[in-house]
């Protein structure tokens, strides 16, 4: 029997008992549907996180802060005062209002910079501008997204912030466009806006800045991004009038290391910093914990889908065993007519694989349809504030893998009945009534 004939016969055979095949296909369908949906959610969420955070763009950055005072946690009472130790600050600079944290001083920055593997360090300064105004169209509150310089933004138009540039650059969220009187993201690019900020003495000042890009809303904070020169300039304005000699302190600093550093080298740098009393995290560390949670959830859902598929596998065994029983005489006849056991085996396992294919292809197809519809509905309702989030996304490769895996499970399930069929003795089979 030719290969093509085996396939066509197997397909024809599986349609002979439509109800039985149909029920088995439904069982496989449920498993494949669930697997496709969960893998789609995995793909969707992961790609969203990646587009939001662009881990690649910030792979060479460590966020460094001072480790909490060890003495305070190890003994019952407060630590003894050490005038040499860094200043503590309570408000602003990124700390929880009213709380006390160990701050970084300029001396700390020098220590961090001297650590081997660290190429440069910038203090994380937080500026609090009062408003933004364009072309006299009114003043609007401006929130600043501090980590904007660390990440690669998801752009609606324009370019990324350039920290090396001499110009003062601004990355505007899409939500500001209407208020400032821009009709499209493109029309905002290259325009100069003025940022209002109050100096130390309480005098309002204005600083011009150029819009280089328009950013889609993100989960990391909806504020505008400022490049380093603009941040520095605003910071200088804020500090204008500060009494001389007042010490500078920062809640955290960003340290850059070699982009090509291996994981071991990064671990070594972090350990080195930890020894000196600094806590440090790469962007990957920060995202990592988030992704772990999502992966666990998806893993659990996949486990349920696999359980459904295993149950479906027994359905295939049952279907085919009944089919073998029903076709005993036919198998006997084919063997009497010179069909060898291997071909009989191939015929029945092909039937199993076909049933698996039918169930998984239908399941995947319906999952893609339903998933896309649900995803679109969610994107305009529940996740309206997260533009660009398509919760369910489908990668052709993962769908192909799911169909392949289901067909493999079906083949394994078909092994038992196919062997039973291949071993039939033509005489016994023909006598069978």
């Amino acid at each position, binding site marked *: *029997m030719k290969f093509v004939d085996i396939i066509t016969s197997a397909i*024809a055979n599986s349609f002979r008992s439509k109800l039985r095949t149909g029920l088995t296909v439904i069982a496989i369908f449920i498993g494949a549907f669930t697997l496709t949906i969960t893998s789609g959610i995995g793909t969707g969420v992961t790609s969203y996180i990646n587009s939001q955070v662009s881990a690649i763009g910030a792979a060479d950055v460590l966020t460094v802060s001072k480790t909490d005072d060890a003495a305070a946690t190890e003994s019952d009472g407060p630590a003894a005062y050490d005038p040499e130790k860094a200043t503590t600050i309570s408000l602003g600079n990124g700390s929880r209002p009213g709380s006390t944290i160990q701050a970084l001083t300029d001396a700390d920055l020098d220590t961090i910079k001297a650590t081997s593997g660290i190429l440069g360090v910038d203090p994380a300064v937080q500026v609090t501008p009062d408003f933004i105004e364009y072309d006299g169209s009114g003043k609007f509150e401006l929130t600043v997204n501090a980590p904007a310089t660390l990440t690669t933004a998801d752009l609606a138009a324009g370019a990324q912030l350039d920290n090396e540039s001499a110009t003062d650059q601004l990355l505007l969220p899409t939500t500001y466009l209407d208020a400032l009187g821009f009709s499209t993201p493109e029309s905002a690019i290259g325009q100069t806006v003025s940022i209002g900020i109050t100096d130390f003495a309480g005098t309002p000042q204005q600083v011009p800045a150029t819009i280089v890009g328009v950013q889609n809303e993100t989960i990391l904070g909806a504020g505008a991004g400022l490049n380093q020169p603009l941040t520095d300039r605003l910071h200088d304005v804020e500090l204008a009038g500060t009494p001389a000699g007042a010490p500078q302190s920062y809640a955290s600093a960003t340290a850059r290391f070699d982009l090509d550093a291996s994981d071991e080298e990064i671990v070594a740098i972090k350990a080195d910093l930890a020894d000196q009393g600094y806590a440090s995290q790469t962007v990957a560390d920060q995202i990592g914990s988030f992704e772990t949670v999502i992966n666990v959830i998806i893993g659990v859902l996949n486990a349920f889908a696999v359980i459904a598929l295993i149950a479906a596998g027994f359905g295939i065994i049952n279907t085919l065993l009944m089919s073998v029983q029903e076709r005993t005489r036919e198998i006997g*006849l084919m063997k*009497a*007519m010179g*069909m060898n056991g291997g071909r009989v085996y191939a015929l029945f396992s092909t039937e199993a694989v076909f049933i698996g294919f039918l169930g998984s292809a239908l399941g995947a197809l319906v999952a893609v349809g339903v998933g896309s519809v649900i995803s679109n509905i969610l994107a305009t309702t529940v996740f309206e504030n997260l533009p660009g989030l398509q919760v369910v996304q489908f990668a052709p490769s993962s769908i192909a893998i799911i169909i392949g895996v289901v067909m493999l499970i079906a083949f394994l399930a078909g092994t038992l009945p196919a062997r039973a069929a291949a071993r039939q003795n033509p005489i016994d089979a023909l006598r069978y009534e």
Partner: protein
Amino acid sequence: MTVPVLSAQNIGKSYGSGANRFDALKGVSVDIRAGESVAIVGKSGSGKSTLMHLLALLDDPDSGALLVEGTDAKKLKGKEVNRLRNQDFGFVFQQFFLTANASVLENVVLPLKIAGVSPKARRARGMKALEQLELADKAKNKAMNLSGGQKQRAVIARALVNNPKVIFADEPTGNLDTATGAVVEDILFSLNKDKGITLIIVTHDIDLAARCDRQIFIRDGIEDVTRSPEAISKPEGARA
């Protein structure tokens, strides 16, 4: 002296073991020559079907030897046995063994499909076989919609489609009424005479057996040499 197509030499076959052991055949020797028609006659349980199965290489004898054109069947590889059964033998069964919801043509070309013949050639040869048996107009009908006689003619077409050297017929008229049975008998004997196909018929119908060139009587697993054609006409006991 030509080599017999099939030659059974003192073959025996038993089923089961211990107390349940049943000797179906206890040593039978038969020579089948090319072109002859042979009836294997006996009551049910006499071992006549077992003998046919052994001759058709559907089963292996426990004792004795079976020669296919002079070659011991034991020395044939599985592949050659399958080729023999597929191309040199044709089978006609009392219960037809047609796949009920497949078309008549599909049923008839099954041996060709197993042999790996291309679909186009399969169709042509299948239609030719059906024309021979005047069933061409039923080619697309489902097998279950045929009458008994048409079913048996479809089975004969299936047996013929590979141009076999030997046709094994197990009670070919057992499920047919007398008139239809006679038509089927005529077809089988005309194939034997016109095409020189060797015919081996297993039956307990003495009239059918009498039409064959030669009769082999089997009783309790051995050949009953005391039976003669005359004895058939006055059988002892009731006969179906």
